[in-house]
């Protein structure tokens, strides 16, 4: 019986003391940077190049990506365009502002808006996309677009890098655009609209920050889109020799 007294007493004491101790255990909260999500920014030009076509047309082309954010959310500005030196006009000028979140181990979802402001009529679209790394190291980017007028379209970008050496890299790209409704004003017919395939040989000259390349690009329009192009002055199929650089800051 005597034995119980200290046990009970210590139980009572520990119970009454516990809350005090528990708060004392916290000591100090970690408010350092380490406890904050890591914030990262990036600026990359996947393509920044001069193109020379089999019809002796010259163009400047870029495809760039600027972002800021954490593992859980990134804000991205994607910009791409094509400037024709003959016509002194943007044949293509596309800007996207999207928010990006991870949805699986290798893939992210994106949502935002796209503004097309080339020579000719402008367009604004809502964008929903998925981007990531598919098996066998295929970089995939698929997007669905809905214009203000309700026209829908989609595109698929795929990229594969073949390491000839650890510095000489052969990059194969394939882009395809499909329209689910016609938008005649900007020359888009229903169905498969166009494809662009490229092969670029690059050399990592300064780290992965500056990698000059040369390559060939093939562009083709299909179906009604090709017919509209033929009716105008545009071509339906082009081969380009390209020279440029991949940049990463």
């Amino acid at each position: 019986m005597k034995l119980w007294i200290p046990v009970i007493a210590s139980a009572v004491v520990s119970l009454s003391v516990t809350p005090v101790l528990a708060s004392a255990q916290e000591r100090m909260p970690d408010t350092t940077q380490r406890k904050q999500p890591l914030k990262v920014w990036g600026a990359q030009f996947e393509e920044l190049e001069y193109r020379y076509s089999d019809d002796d047309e010259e163009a400047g082309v870029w495809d760039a990506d600027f972002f800021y954010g954490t593992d859980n959310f990134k804000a991205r500005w994607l910009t791409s365009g094509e400037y024709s030196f003959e016509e002194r006009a943007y044949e293509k000028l596309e800007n996207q502002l999207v928010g990006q979140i991870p949805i699986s181990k290798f893939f992210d979802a994106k949502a935002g808006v796209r503004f097309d402001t080339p020579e000719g009529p402008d367009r604004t679209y809502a964008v929903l996309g998925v981007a990531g790394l598919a098996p066998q190291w295929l970089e995939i980017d698929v997007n669905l677009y809905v214009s203000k007028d309700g026209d829908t379209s989609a595109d698929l970008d795929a990229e594969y890098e073949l390491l000839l050496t650890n510095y000489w890299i052969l990059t194969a790209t394939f882009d395809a655009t499909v329209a689910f409704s016609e938008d005649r004003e900007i020359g888009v017919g229903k169905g498969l609209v166009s494809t662009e395939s490229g092969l670029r040989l690059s050399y990592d000259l300064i780290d992965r920050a500056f990698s000059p390349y040369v390559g060939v690009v093939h562009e083709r329009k299909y179906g009604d889109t090709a017919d509209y192009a033929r009716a105008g002055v545009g071509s339906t199929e082009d081969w380009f020799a390209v020279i440029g650089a991949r940049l990463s800051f």
Partner: protein
Amino acid sequence: MKRTLVAGTLSLLLPAIGLAGEYNLTVDRVTIDTGEFVKEGVGYNGKSPGPTLRFKEGEEVSINVTNNLDEMTSIHWHGLILPFEQDGVPGISFPGIKPGETFTYKFPITQSGTYWFHSHSGFQEPEGAFGSIIIEPEGREPFRYDREYVVQLTDKHPHASERVMRNLKITPDYYNRKQQTVGEFFSDASENGFLNTVKERLAWGDMRMMQADVEDLQGFTGMINGKGPEQNWTGLFEPGERVRLRFINSSAMTYFDIRIPGLEMTVVQADGNNVQPVNVDEFRIGVAETYDVIVRPKDEQAYTIFAESMGRSGYARATLAPEEGMEAPVPGLREPARLTMADMGGMPGMDHGDMPGMDHGDMGDHGDMVGENEMADMSDMDHSRMEGMDHSSMTMPEGGASDPFYAKGSGLVPTAANGGKFLSYADLKAQKPLYEEREPAREIELRLTGNMERYTWSINGVKYEDAEPIRLKYGERVRFKFVNETMMTHPMHLHGMWSILDVGAGQWNPIKHTVSVQPGTTVYMETEVDAPGQWAFHCHLTYHMAAGMFRKVIVEGGPESTQAASSEQLSEVGGDV
């Protein structure tokens, strides 16, 4: 309890008998010249590495640290057992040291051996903020030596650490220039057959994993005591002398395989604690580990200390010589290491869909890997179950080499360049156990997790920013189970309390402060929770730690006096790095 009382009494008595030392350190911007490039960095007392601090066991030290930087700083005494307020981790032990401020660390030295110190703020440590600590024991050492040198290694990178982190987050293979190429495909094809090679590449491609994913950060210059390979740090000796080399790996990211061609090394200490001597030809030192070896050069000639990085992308080099200016040949780098399927042993989600190449024919005997159900849930897949897998068709560059601390058939198993003995964790036996052997109260599983493609690193799938602290109870013994589910090696470092690495030697298990966990393996360590307060517990690879492979450990309870002291501590909380 008794031990604490004794320690308490001792610490009261010691100042009285005069064993107290005062030390001064300034934290400065410095210039670091690797011989290949010159870079701004952070150092101590105007240099990187900083000085060697020499303490005596039983001494009460006060160290005045003056911050001459324009940002917060801190010093962590790596491996030292001390009150948590003195441990130097901003946000966990104390708020940090403000620019222009002098902070005085005060703690008793209760141990002996080779240790080091470094900043725990931002990326100051990889920028050069580290130095070495030698603590002389109170009693006699169980080995003899005539002279000694600190051999402190680092992997100096030309890029600023902030930029390295950003590059790795954007392009995780940014620095990996040992990737498999078209050329390697053809050489593998001619060696292992075309179809086998295609299947192998497809299997890895399907998982989106790289066999070459051994070193995140290549392009560094290996340095020893602040000298690059060309600057050749040299330690002098008289032929016939026993020379004690205190190796410390202060690298941000690099494991080194160390050898001294022509000399056998006797390993006598690991992480500051004496081990039963082992003679080796070569050993691997993980990031933040220390190894003390004794060599006995008999001839009037120079010997090269060659530290080759684990992934074979770089090296550090120094010389032992009878006189200044002498040199010995510098070996070439061996073939880069390649991971094998065995290194994936701990991967969760290793189901059929993810791993088509891993079945059926080319993998040979499946042994006990039976049934769809087992394949579907491999998150708890341990080592022993993998042993039924025959990896013979997969590349095993090291041939039959094996080490119980690597996955069976792992591509990372090291072998000695001269074909001799390579140190394994299994060879480490404590010279004198620090604690009585007893059953741990509980086991805590820590899965080492990450995603190489996103460069996220975590524990149990949770990054530090989202994690709750690990709570331990003062006086208990806990068993930590590390399950490495990533493809990289992680040097796990628990502050404030010893990590008793389970090598199967019972009470002779070695006592460490940093435990390397190889991919595809499960490693156990036990800890006597004898230090109240809160502590850091993390992967010591700088960029893994910064990306979230970090935990706060709270030790609940403890001696009355410490409770009171730490409640007071509450009033001065806050602070930033």
